[in-house]
């Protein structure tokens, strides 16, 4: 158990480190990327990894490492924007449902549950196919689709906290609802919300990659991990490195977010840390 706890701390640190490197690379992309991600070198197409091109080159002779570095920009932006939209929209709906009348609660939650009861990727493709292809549309679609998770969480917690003695006391004293929300409800649910944010962040990165892989997300020549994998599919036999590295970085990014989310939710849950 202590060993398990220790190894979890190590994993958590590694995950944080990986994400820090990724964020730094995304911000300083023009400085750290060895080549321009969209510049084509037709004389050196399909070069296997060498010292010159650490992760090889693609079908246009573009440097894979540089494209991965620039791709981290769109991945992180997708995560940030999606989580922000989902949190704002879902959080507001959840608070309204939790604090409002039971009828409002039923109607809002019915809509949220309907969205939730549908495969994310299919819903995302549908919305994007009507909004038009592109990164902005993907983020908008993912933000809306991810909001029910937050709505449910915030609603459940709000309902639970609403019944607590100190909140009832505050209400009895005539504290305005807005003040109760900011002083009592939000601080109480912050932990769980942060955990949910890390899950949604990871999920939105994967979904963006999936959509780009299907050709309805980020459009060429922009660098995106999903887009790189889409191109790689046509050259699996010829140039396997094109498929391996972008996917590996994608998987490691998602893994890091999952580990952080798991660790946080365990540390924040006294019942789990207390027992065995």
């Amino acid at each position: 158990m202590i060993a398990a706890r220790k190894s979890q701390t190590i994993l958590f640190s590694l995950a944080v480190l990986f994400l820090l490197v990724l964020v730094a690379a995304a911000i300083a992309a023009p400085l750290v990327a060895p080549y321009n991600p969209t510049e084509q070198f037709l004389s050196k197409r399909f070069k296997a990894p060498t010292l010159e091109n650490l992760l090889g080159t693609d079908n246009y002779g573009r440097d894979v490492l540089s494209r991965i570095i620039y791709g981290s920009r769109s991945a992180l932006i997708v995560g940030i924007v999606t989580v922000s939209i989902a949190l704002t929209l879902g959080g507001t709906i959840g608070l309204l449902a939790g604090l409002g009348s039971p009828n409002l609660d039923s109607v809002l939650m019915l809509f949220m549950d309907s969205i939730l009861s549908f495969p994310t990727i299919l819903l995302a493709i549908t919305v994007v196919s009507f909004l038009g292809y592109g990164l902005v549309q993907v983020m908008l679609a993912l933000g809306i689709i991810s909001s029910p998770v937050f709505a449910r969480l915030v609603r459940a917690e709000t309902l639970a906290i609403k019944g607590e003695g100190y909140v009832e006391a505050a209400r009895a004293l005539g504290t305005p609802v807005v003040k109760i929300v900011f002083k009592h409800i939000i601080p109480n649910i912050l932990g769980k919300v942060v955990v949910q944010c890390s899950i949604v962040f990871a999920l939105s990165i994967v979904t963006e990659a999936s959509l780009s892989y299907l050709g309805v997300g980020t459009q060429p020549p922009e660098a995106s991990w999903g887009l790189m994998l889409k191109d790689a599919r046509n050259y699996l036999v010829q140039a396997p490195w094109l498929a391996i590295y972008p996917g590996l970085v994608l998987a490691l990014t998602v893994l890091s977010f999952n580990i952080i989310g798991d660790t946080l939710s365990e540390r924040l849950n006294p019942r789990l840390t207390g027992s065995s």
Partner: protein
Amino acid sequence: MDLVRFFVKRFLRLLLTVLIISTLIFFVIRIIPGDPALIIAGVDASAEDIQIIREKLGTDRSLPMQYLAWLYSIIRFDFGNSMISGESVTKLIFERFPLTLTLALMGISIGILVAIPLGVMSAVKRWSLWDYFGLVFSQAGMAIPSFWLGMVLLLLFAVKIPIFPLFGSETFAHYILPALSLGFGRAAVILRLARASMVEELSKEYVITARAKGLTETMVKYKHALKNALLPVITITGIELGYMLGGAIIIEQVFSLPGLGRLFLFGIYQRDFTLIQGGVVFVAIVFSMINFLADILYSVVNPKIRVE
């Protein structure tokens, strides 16, 4: 009696979900700025052409009329004709659906066969090698995107060591790698749940009682606790099966399998709006039905839920 009431309640909820999804799809399509007829017709279409497309789409009528017509078409299970090929959308869907369903069923079978034994073993022997293996497996399963896994599997087992065919859908062997890619990620989710559920059961009082009265460990764990621990797994398996129908879209693209997903994508590339809306509603109906069946099955094996 309460089983019947539960059944009716859930069935009404199923209808309501389908109604809401259909309504959302209807309005999403209409809210988007721009006339779909103009988008479909292209820049240099004549006014007549645009009018014909409007009539085909039904967008020449008033909004409430369109909505009623849309709901009526869903009740009849007639999603109109493809705007590109003119074929019946319902027919197109039913031609492609068996492949996608096969893939999803194979995927969920792989998921269950791997996840439940591993999850249960992890819970019974906590902090053992089993448990660590299960932990690594579930983290990997959740982090590795299915379509990338598909590509890596193709690379390993169709290119480097050619034991499986590269692309195509003619034989059973063509389905194994796609089903594995689809099942792996979902197995991780089922495993986590199976483990958590088993750990919880093992800490309950009836387990202590069973031990105290002298039952063997095997009886306690695998007869008493396991039975209860598997209950929530039924629900999640239903949900996961539904998600696999969605996940199949991308896996079909990786392996060039002509299923519902590819049909749907084709519709999107061609801007075939009737095909897209028909496809989404069809999946919504199937998805809700799977969840409904899982709920019913769950209530049959666990009477407690019906009282709720």
